[in-house]
């Protein structure tokens, strides 16, 4: 594949956590991201889904070299981001942008929309003329569905959905090649969620962006993703093309996540079976041996407790980390 833009190889982020008193402090290792590998092509959208604590936000930050990985590397257009000196990396950041979850918290309340959106321009092109800045800012505002005459307003004058549009405009102002959206719609109302998802999809096509879209719910990423990656406790459980993942998931955890999505139909919803998931996610400070999902998996066998399943390419070119991927048929029934 020649049009690959991003390659993540065996990426791991471990945090050291100190517990207990000064004298007898114990240092624990929290394995937030634990050996994640994937590729991203130009113009492709990858959805990343997992429950809170699965490491998806940490992965997003490590992917953009905002935090230092403990192991592994991130190649952007063939170059290792971890090996670049600060100045080179800073220049590369023009191409790599991020949109955050909480739109209001991510915008400085004391800056106008113009200053918020223009800040990356001033940072990268300090000598740029003010007229040019204004023109560019108005341009992206229009592109994300904001009225250019609102350029002098402050974030509090906008609703949550509009604030997220400002965040997207700021990410787009430098014409990036990759935009990572970390739960961009989780804080928004349902009717506004759809607006933002549709907007991102349009922009992605129009600008041929590579997009990473993170969510905790499989229903949200479905409309926008070409491929979907499912994470659990810092590991990749499955990466499949959209058409396959929602019909015939390869990993029991994916299937449980699909079944957990509520159906807005009273008759179907009353028939809905339990997800088959029992218990809570184990602590990432104390990862289970073998497959990290084995304690909650309805298909667990002895081997799952002992041996960590590798992420394997299966016959339909989708990937899953499950010992029993070939023998299980997890086809989703009509009731989801």
């Amino acid at each position: 594949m020649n049009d690959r833009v991003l390659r993540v190889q065996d990426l791991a982020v471990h945090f050291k956590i100190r517990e207990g008193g000064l004298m007898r402090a114990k240092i624990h290792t929290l394995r937030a991201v634990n050996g994640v590998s994937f590729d991203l092509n130009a113009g492709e959208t990858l959805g990343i889904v997992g429950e809170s604590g699965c490491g998806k936000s940490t992965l997003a930050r490590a992917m953009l070299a905002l935090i230092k990985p403990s192991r592994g590397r991130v190649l952007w257009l063939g170059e290792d981001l971890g090996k670049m000196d600060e100045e080179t990396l800073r220049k590369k950041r023009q191409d790599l942008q991020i949109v955050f979850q909480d739109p209001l918290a991510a915008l400085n309340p004391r800056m106008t929309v113009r200053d918020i959106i223009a800040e990356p321009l001033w940072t990268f092109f300090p000598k740029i003329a003010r007229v040019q800045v204004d023109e560019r800012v108005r341009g992206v505002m229009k592109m994300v569905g904001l009225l250019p005459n609102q350029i002098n307003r402050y974030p509090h004058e906008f609703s949550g959905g509009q604030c997220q549009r400002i965040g997207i405009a700021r990410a787009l102002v430098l014409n990036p090649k990759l935009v990572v959206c970390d739960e961009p719609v989780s804080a928004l109302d349902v009717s506004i969620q759809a607006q933002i998802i549709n907007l991102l999809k349009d922009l992605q096509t129009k600008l041929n962006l590579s997009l990473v879209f993170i969510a905790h719910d499989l229903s949200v990423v479905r409309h926008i993703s070409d491929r979907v990656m499912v994470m659990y406790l810092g590991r990749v459980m499955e990466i499949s093309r959209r058409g396959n993942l929602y019909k015939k998931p390869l990993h029991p955890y994916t299937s449980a996540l699909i079944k957990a999505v509520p159906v807005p139909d009273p008759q179907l919803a009353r028939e809905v079976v339990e997800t088959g998931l029992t218990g809570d996610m184990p602590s990432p400070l104390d990862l289970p041996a073998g497959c990290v999902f084995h304690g909650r998996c309805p298909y667990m066998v002895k081997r799952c407790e002992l041996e960590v399943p590798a992420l394997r390419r299966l016959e339909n070119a989708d990937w899953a980390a499950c010992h029993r991927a070939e023998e299980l048929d997890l086809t989703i029934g009509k009731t989801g």
Partner: protein
Amino acid sequence: MTLLEVKDLDVGFDTPEGEVHAVNTLNFSLKAGDTLAIVGESGSGKTQTVMAIMGLLAENGHVSGQALFKDKDLLQMSSAELNNYRGRKIAMIFQDPMTSLNPYLSIEKQMTEVVIHHQKLSKSEARAHAVEMLRAVRIPDPERRIRQYPHEFSGGMRQRVMVAMGLLCEPDLLIADEPTTALDVTVQAQISHLMNALRLKSNTAIILITHDLGVVAGLCDRVLVMYAGEAVECGSVEQIYYQPKHPYTKGLLDSVPRLDQPEDKGLHSIPGNPPNLLSLPQGCKFRDRCPRAFAACTQQPPMHIDEGRHAYRCFLEEPV
């Protein structure tokens, strides 16, 4: 028997920018064992409605109308009188289990306080009762866990503790304000199942507040849809999901991303944003975002009531 009847409820807040009209002339009622969902976007007034009923409005808030609970008006009661109802006959589960449990008190202390106060149980009786409740919400090893503090529980476990606390005194009415919004999908499903099981067991009436029509379908009998402080539609779940009348309800339903429909079907959204509550438009509050709006919508639309108690606020007979 009618358990709760809310009549002409108005809630407003005085702010430096002017008066915010959070709830306007709201009417609904609930029988024992009923489950009612109040659905709407942020700022639609759903939370302030129940806060007003429970006497928990912020200091700058004011309320008028009636909220008759077993024929007694909760809005006329003093705080002391209300305390005989709150936690005992009417319990509330708040949205964020992280902030609504006291981090300094053990789960035991927080749970037994309510029963010791209301049911005059001894400490050990109260403890046994609380352990039993934790077991009912499927907290493993409740005898040990009850001595722990909130930070030792995961988000889903904390919300289960909240549900257990809400049901401790076997209330007649349980108000759950977005009980699953802060939780992961798999945990959401667990909590919904749990509330449903407990309702069937004890015939508790439930008011479920949410912005997501997805979670309502399996749990509730009736749905009240609010927009900008007003009821726009009210009916049985079947009426709301299969024959929605109000264009806003239809829009909300279409916006829910569904896995049981083909993926190439684009995602519907409602254009625009909810109105500013400081300066509400005259007439229909939804008209700026409504695909069916016409000249008459500048006047306040009437509430139609169909056979089968299906009500909707619109000038059109068949708006959808």
